[in-house]
């Protein structure tokens, strides 16, 4: 057995190292190292409670709005303020712009360039993939970036700017929009839909959203393999067997996405062994047995963050567990909990690289259509914000779904100041180290058995598996 150290592991958000134990032509063990600690939780203690809205989004430049939504949710829980309908609609639109832009940034800039690597030079699709997806230089980057910029112009209206807006407040949104602006944003959404239907899918969003099985997906992709980017992925995934790669057989979790007064667009819950289940939020705990911290396992409402470089660990990432067990989060988990037929079928033999990517693209189709409905539902004559009452004393939990999975903030306020603040980000779940029982985290499990080609020091299969989780390392440790 030998050890490979892969790092810097780029085209993820932030810094990452993966240590692999290799035997023969396969990975037999993996340790995921999050090498950066910035100390946001300690930074927040003692601050005026409302200042969480300034600091928290700056945890992450790619999930900034998700961090704002979670912080506002925690303050909302502590203060009891209730947002008006327009507040929910505006915040959901801002959140959706970020999440959908993130899904596509991952697909076009982070994930697909690995298929343009020289290791695939013998594949029939190689030349076309190099032309389309080579990092920075491929034609897809040149198509995608202007479309992304046009889509993000919605942020200029609804959020002032992105990343790091302060428009998202416990009581809704600071930014009321007029009838004229609603009409203009409708035009922007139409422009983005045209990009998706022409370039990304080569089909309507509705037809993509209606795909109900993996066989249907393959049949859909074949005639579009030279005209649509998602179909290009599906065909090469089928050729490379990416539905067999990076498998996990663990419980999926979702905090519920796009909240309004009636609940969530995508449900809150868990999914395991082919069936949905409840989410016992009081049974979340973070274990630090293999992380560089002092302390015992604790629920985040009572959690502490005490860094200790002399501790016996290998990562700055804590190990969150649900009911003592590992949980996987992300777009696939969200769609499994929500019960979408395509996600259920693609993950029938366990979560895998192909299913994780397909679920992201499915969400692009589902959410952009939903955004059109949210925009139409805004009543410009009604309020967008209920004036916030700063929490003097109290506790609150802000639970939401970032593009890459479940994000929670747990706040304790005392006389208007933050007494304790704990954050568990999506990649904290997915890239967690081992816990006290020695159980590896989701990525560590997914990497076991990954094939290694002769002479590879940076195994391409490992590249695909790691990036299939769309990791955000700056969120992971925060």
């Amino acid at each position: 057995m030998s050890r490979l150290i892969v790092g810097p592991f780029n085209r993820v958000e932030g810094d990452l190292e993966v240590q692999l134990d290799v035997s023969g032509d396969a990975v037999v063990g993996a340790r995921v190292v999050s090498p950066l600690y910035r100390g946001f939780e300690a930074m927040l203690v003692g601050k005026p409670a409302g200042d969480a809205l300034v600091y928290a989004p700056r945890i992450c430049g790619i999930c900034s709005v998700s961090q704002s939504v979670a912080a506002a949710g925690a303050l909302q829980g502590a203060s009891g303020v209730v947002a008006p309908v327009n507040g929910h609609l505006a915040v959901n639109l801002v959140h959706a712009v970020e999440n959908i832009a993130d899904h596509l940034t991952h697909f076009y800039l982070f994930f697909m360039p690995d298929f343009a690597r020289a290791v695939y030079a013998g594949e029939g699709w190689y030349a076309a993939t190099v032309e389309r997806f080579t990092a920075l230089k491929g034609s897809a980057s040149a198509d995608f970036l202007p479309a992304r910029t046009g889509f993000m112009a919605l942020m200029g209206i609804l959020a002032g700017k992105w990343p790091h807006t302060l428009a998202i407040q416990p009581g809704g949104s600071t930014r009321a929009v007029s009838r004229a602006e609603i009409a203009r944003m409708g035009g922007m959404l139409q422009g983005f839909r045209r990009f998706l239907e022409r370039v990304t899918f080569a089909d309507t969003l509705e037809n993509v959203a209606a795909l109900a099985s993996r066989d249907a997906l393959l049949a859909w992709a074949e005639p579009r393999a030279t005209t649509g980017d998602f179909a290009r992925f599906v065909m090469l995934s089928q050729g490379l067997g990416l539905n067999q790669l990076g498998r996990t057989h663990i419980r999926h979790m979702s905090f519920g996405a796009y909240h309004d007064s009636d609940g969530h667009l995508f449900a809150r819950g868990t999914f395991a062994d082919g069936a949905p289940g409840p989410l016992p939020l009081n049974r979340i705990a973070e274990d630090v047995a293999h992380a560089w911290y002092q302390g015992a396992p604790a629920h985040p409402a009572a959690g502490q963050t005490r860094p200790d470089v002399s501790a016996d660990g290998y990562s700055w990432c804590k190990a969150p567990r649900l009911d003592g067990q590992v949980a996987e989060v992300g777009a696939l988990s969200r769609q499994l909990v929500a019960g979408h037929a395509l996600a259920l079928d693609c993950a029938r033999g366990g979560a895998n690289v192909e299913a994780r990517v397909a679920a992201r693209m499915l969400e692009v189709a589902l959410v952009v259509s939903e955004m059109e409905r949210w925009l139409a539902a805004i009543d410009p004559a009604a309020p967008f914000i209920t004036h916030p009452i700063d929490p003097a004393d109290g506790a609150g939990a802000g639970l939401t779904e970032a593009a890459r999975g479940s994000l929670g903030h747990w706040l304790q306020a005392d006389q208007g100041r933050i007494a304790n603040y704990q954050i568990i980000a999506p990649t904290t779940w997915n890239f967690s180290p081992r816990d006290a029982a020695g159980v590896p985290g989701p990525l560590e499990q997914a990497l076991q058995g990954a094939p290694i080609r002769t002479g590879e020091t940076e195994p391409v299969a490992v590249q695909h598996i790691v990036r299939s989780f769309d990791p955000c390392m700056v969120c992971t440790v925060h």
Partner: protein
Amino acid sequence: MSAPLSLVWLQSGGCGGCTLSLLGADAPDLLATLAAANVDVLWHPSLSEASGAEARTLLADIAGGRRKVDIVCLEGSVINGPAGSGRFHMAAGTGEPMRDLVAAICARAGVVIAVGSCAAFGGITAGGDNHVEATGLSYDGTAPGGLLGPDFRGQGGLPVVNIAGCPIHPGWFTDTLLQYAAGALTREDLDEWERPLAYTAHLVHHGCARNEFYEFKASAETPGDMGCMMENLGCKGTQARADCNIRAWNGSGSCLDGNYACINCTAPGFEEPGHAFAVTPKVGGIPIGLPTDMPKAWFVALASLSKAATPKRLRENATRATPSVLPHDKRRDGK
């Protein structure tokens, strides 16, 4: 065509938001900017194909002087903790503090660009008690120093160029890169904190759509109100140096246009304002953070005069989310 300018981008104690903002560059977009500046990106952690050993070799070759680099960008602060060890950020795959790799690569650069307030001054990462010991490249907050020291100069003779902001506006970076590539970026183009004057010759106040409310001291009272946010809601736009209300964000926006206060994110030390961000500190009812270059007595006198002269339209609208009184041309009424 002359040889391209090579660029390496490193990240340490930050959020990656400056890169994500930069991807939204518009007219020119990022790819057009790189082409126009004739820049070859040797490595960027979010955008390059090279991973692992290939990236480590490239960075080691640059640090060792075996491969030339013209432009070095750092995004995120330099992490020195705990106790000066740098172990809060060990560069992945190397077992070495990231800080040491950054220093070695900067020493080889034609020009060093600090991208964002973290890399320039320490920024948000230096907030609270800064137990991670975050600094900028040539400042530790407002104190000259940082990783490279105040006397550092790139091989081309410029100090670290500080494109401060949290995050940067994409145009601040693309303008600076194009100006540097054209050989037109000099010490005279940088302000007292070595920030490009292209954007810091302005105040955020310039072009603010609330200027009329400011003139008459018609103030917002709660988040989302239309009035001026300086008196009550913590806005620092009259002191903050940036062109945010002249150069739109994400097509048409700005913080002020989003109906929330400017927090002066281009300034060293913005992360610890000494008061709640969204509340204006006052002494005897008068905001302490008045425009820096205006005599206070004059400001107070003019403010009380203009308050007395506030038109009904502004007084009514200032505390509302949408206007109740609109400008109106009386000639249309036949009077």
